[in-house]
Every structure is written in structure tokens, then in C-alpha cells.
């Protein structure tokens, strides 16, 4: 287990360190999303459920579902989050000593 912590700057430069490259990947990703959405118009689906016929049902469901998921989870933090050692300094730790 060697953890060499280099100070930043005096080390090799990586491809993803360049914000331009990250931006490039993101453009590819956005383009992929647009193409997938457009494919909805082209490909004929064999659907089992009427909602699947709606244009962009899956993309919309995925997007909205995930946003709701994250927002609800963030809200859950307000009443579920405790310090990291929450259980350690309760009765459990006292029993050990």
C-alpha cells in the first residue's frame, strides 16, 4: 500500500486534465442523446404498453426519474444524515472498554 501524494503541478499531465477534452466528450454525449431521441421517429417499436408509444417516453422517464431520485435523496439527508462516528460514540463503543 503505497500512497504517494504528489503536490499538484510537478507530475504527468493527463488527457482528461484538459477541460477542452472533457468538453469534447460532453459534446459527443449530447450528440448521442439527440440521435437516440431522433431514432424514436425512425424505428418502429413493438410495444406492449400504450405509454411506450409516446414520443420520447423512455428518455423523459429516465431524465425525470433520475432528477426526482437525486432531489428526494438529497432531501432525505436532512433527517437521515449523522456524523461519521455516530454509532461509535454511542453505547456500542462504551461496551468495548
Amino acid at each position, binding site marked *: 500500500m503505497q500512497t504517494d501524494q504528489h*503536490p499538484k503541478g510537478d507530475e504527468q499531465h493527463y488527457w482528461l486534465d484538459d477541460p477542452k477534452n472533457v468538453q469534447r466528450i460532453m459534446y459527443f454525449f449530447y450528440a448521442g442523446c439527440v440521435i437516440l431521441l431522433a431514432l424514436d421517429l425512425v424505428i418502429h*417499436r413493438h410495444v406492449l*404498453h400504450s405509454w411506450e408509444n409516446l414520443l420520447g417516453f*423512455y428518455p423523459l422517464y*429516465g431524465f425525470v426519474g433520475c432528477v426526482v431520485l437525486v432531489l428526494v435523496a*438529497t432531501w432525505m439527508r436532512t433527517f437521515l444524515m449523522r456524523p*461519521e462516528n455516530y454509532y461509535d460514540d454511542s453505547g456500542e463503543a462504551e461496551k468495548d472498554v
Partner: protein
Amino acid sequence: MWMLEIPPFVPFFIGALIAAFTRGKLRGVIMMLTPILGALHLWMVPEGIHLQFAFLGYELMPYRVDKLSLMFGYVFHIAAFIAVVYSLHVRDTVQQVAAMLYAGSGLGAVFAGDLLTLFVFWELLAFTSVFLIWARRTQRAYLVGMRYLIIQVLSGGILLVGALFYASENGSLEFGKIGLEGIAGWLIFIAFGIKCAFPIAHTWLTDAYPEATVTGTVFLSAITTKVAVYALARAYPGTELLVYIGVAMACFPIFFAVIENDLRRVLAYSLINQVGFMVVGIGIGTALAINGAVSHAFNDVIFKGLLFMTMGAVLHMTGRINGSELGGLYKTMPKTTVLCIVGAASISAFPLFSGFVSKSMVMSAALETGYDWIWLALLFASAGVFHHAGIKIPYFAFFAHDSGIRVSDPPTNMLLAMSIAAGLCIAIGIYPAALYSLLPYDTGYNPYDATHVLAQTQLLFFSALAFVWLNLRGLYPPELPSTNLDFDWFYRRFFPRVLQKLFAFIWNADRAVRQAFMVRLDLFLGYLSWKNDRLSGLLSRNHPAGSMVMWVAVILASYLLLSFMA
């Protein structure tokens, strides 16, 4: 053929015994050979009952082979082999022997043809696996292991009681379809449910798996819950209640996974989420659904194992596992990064990866049988699993902000094990027919039609888009060092506190009552002696002595009087 009569757990138990008395490389070779030889043996075994005898008037079948048990038998051998390779560098007799016994117990359980044999291996699973947690050798791991063991043994106890009821109801101990009729059916269902991490009973899993050793978790994630899935598939196919339990399991853990900091605990939550899909499949109970559940269990063992291995590699190399302390590891751990992404793509069910070919079966089965809302919820869970296991795990470990940690890729044996798992994930994803040919039913299902592929890809891409958008808007919850309360809070905090308070109250009340009584008694005695003082103050301060003296005087006086009169 005498070889037929050797149940699959025997090679593992023998392997464990030999491993206990060997050292170093030899032990490694034996541990690798065991699953290989075991798998070859199993491959040649035909279906049927290969071992049967009478015990206390009941027919026991410790070794029964059919397509359902074979699927789990194969995957446990694969998982054991991969995990053994992954842990070749470990020099810890306790852990290595326990791991072999544990894998053997899993095999014993899935080939058990009667409830008594099942019970024995059910408990063995608990007692062997706990050493993989204790092997961390910290106080924390010790306490976690105790909690884990108590819950697992409880599950076994309920199973035994259920089996006894079953025997008295049916006059047989055969482990077949049981169904939710009678008290036996419910007890056995609860026992399976605890091991399967049903909601509320799930906390042993999220509590214990992240605290086990780096290599121990890989074994743990493969076997315990899958044995429970197998048991449910055997005993409760088509039980509607399972559909609702399964969908709850698929949905609720993803919320916890999003805010969890310990990345192995994130995987533990996502394990419950994946098991949820299997439980839904078993609950639907059609041929397609059961096939989906079983093949998803098969794939999950491999891709979840792969993800636990990559996070184990991170923990092994950096000594850290919290998302808040990691990041930027792709720079010096490129191989691990790629392997992790393969695992992430598989669990997210990207087309051409293993999760896709099995999960879509459960989804299709839900739609075909008219469980529309269940299907919608599962779709949400699919998007969610991509969000936390597919993106969060690789992103926060290997990318995100640069933590400045520079460690190399893990040792060769770990990389090799992860590569085998990743290879299987891709191979099954590309050529699912091989997996399908092993399934219990022949449904002629084909996952790769344009409709499915497009729908799934759209769902995943736009889930990723949501992640990107939330991140850019600063709405994504940052990784924070924290503990998130889950149901285990009730037995780790709430009940101990309540009991503490209750007993404190009882003791206080008890003391108060005693004190009040003592005061009253004191007062009463004081009153009595005061009365006496006034009565017999003449001769003595004390009542008994005073009255005695008086009566003696009376007797003497009457005696004197009588003697004069005589």
C-alpha cells in the same frame, strides 16, 4: 458411477481441510483447483436424486440435481474460482479456510433436496461467512460480525421451526414448492426473506458487507443472498406478495445509495436493488419471469462481484473507500478503471453487457402479465441503478475531483480475477444463448430486438444526462463523510436507548417506592415506641422489659397474698 454420489459441497470441504494444513503457493493451487475440479464434476452430473436415506422416519435427500439448482451450482463455482484468484495474495488461514467452507455451504444449500439438509447448510453459511467479517480484526468488524451472526442464526432458527411445522403438516420434509399456506409456509418464507434482505430485514447486509475484508466481501456478495433467491424460486414461485416485496427492494435502496459515502456500502445497497428484480421475477412466476430471475442472479453474481473487486482494489491500494476521500484514480489505476466501467455497464444493463440480457426478461414478464405499475417502478429502479452504481461508483472513485492519491493498479492476481469477471460480463452480453441454454425453461426469448435496445439505451443516456445536468447546476449532493440512518438505527440506537430509559425509570421508581416504605416504617416504629414510652415509662424505658417487670411484680404480689391467706 461412485463419483455421482459425491455432493458438490464435499470437494470444497476437503479443499478447506487441506488448505488449513498447507502454506503459501501450495495452498493457493489447492484453492484454485477445488472449484475447477468441482465444476468439471458438476458438469457431468445428470439431473436427478443422487443421494437419499431415511432419518428418523423422514426421507432426506442431501443431493438433488435439477436445472434450477444447477444454474446456481455453476455460478457459485465460477464465483468461488474468481474470488480465490482475487485473494491469492492473502496469507490468512482463517479467511481462506472460512471462504472455502462458505462456498461449500452455499453449494450444499442449493443441492439440498429436503428442508433439514437445507437448514444445516443455512446455518453453516452464517457461521462460516462471519469469519470473513471478523478477519478484518478490528473492534468495529467484531461488533458488526456479531450483529450479522445474530440475524443470520435467527433466520436459521425460524427455518428450523418452519420445517418442523411443515413436517407435521405434510408428513414429509421434501424441499419443493411450499407456498404461503399455513404457519409452516409463513415461517419458512420469513426465514428466506431475512437472508434475501427483504426491506426492514435488509440492514444486516448493508451493515456487514462493507465491513468485511477486501476479499471477503467478494465471496459474501456472491453467495448468501443468491442462496435465498434460489430458495424462494424453488418454494414460492408465483407468490404475488413477492412482486410487491421485490419492487420495494428494487426501489428504496437507490435513494440510500445516492447519499452513501462508503462506496462498498453503495454497492451493498445496489445489491439489494438487483435482488429486488429477481424477487419480482419469482413473484410473477411465469416461465419467462423465472428464467429472468435465475439468469439475473447468475449475472449479478459476476458483475456485482466485479464491482466489489474493483472497489476492493481501491481500498487495498489506497486504504480508503469513502467517495469524499477518493477521486482522480484513473490516472494511475487505468486498468482498474476500465474493469470498473465494464462492471458498471453490466449492472446498468447496457446492451452488449450481461445485465441487459437478463433484466429485460423480468421487465418484459411484468408487462406481459399486466403488472403495469410494477413495470414502471422497475423502469425507475433501472434508471436509478445506473445513476448510483453505473455512474456514481466509477465517477467518484476514478474521476471527479483529483484527490491527489497516486497508487498503481493492484497486484496481478487481482487484475486477473477482475478481467475474468469482466470477460464473462461481455461474453454473456454478446452471446446470451449460452446462458439461456442452461435456464430452467425454454422460452425462445431474444433481448436484442430494436425496440428493447433503443428503449434501454435511451433510458440510460438520459439518466446520464440527468446526472450531468444536476452536476452542472450544482444540485448533485456532494459526497460527505457521514453515517446515514437506516432501519438498523432501531436496534442499534432506538431500542437500546428506550430500554436504557425504561430500566432507568423502573429502577428509579423502585427506589422511590422502597424509600417511601422505609420512611413510613420508620415513622410507625417511632410512633409505637413513643406510645410505649408513655405506657411504661415508670419501670423501664422499653416496653417489653417494663411490662415484664410489672407482671413479675404482680405475680409475686399475688403469690404473697395467697400464701398469707392459706
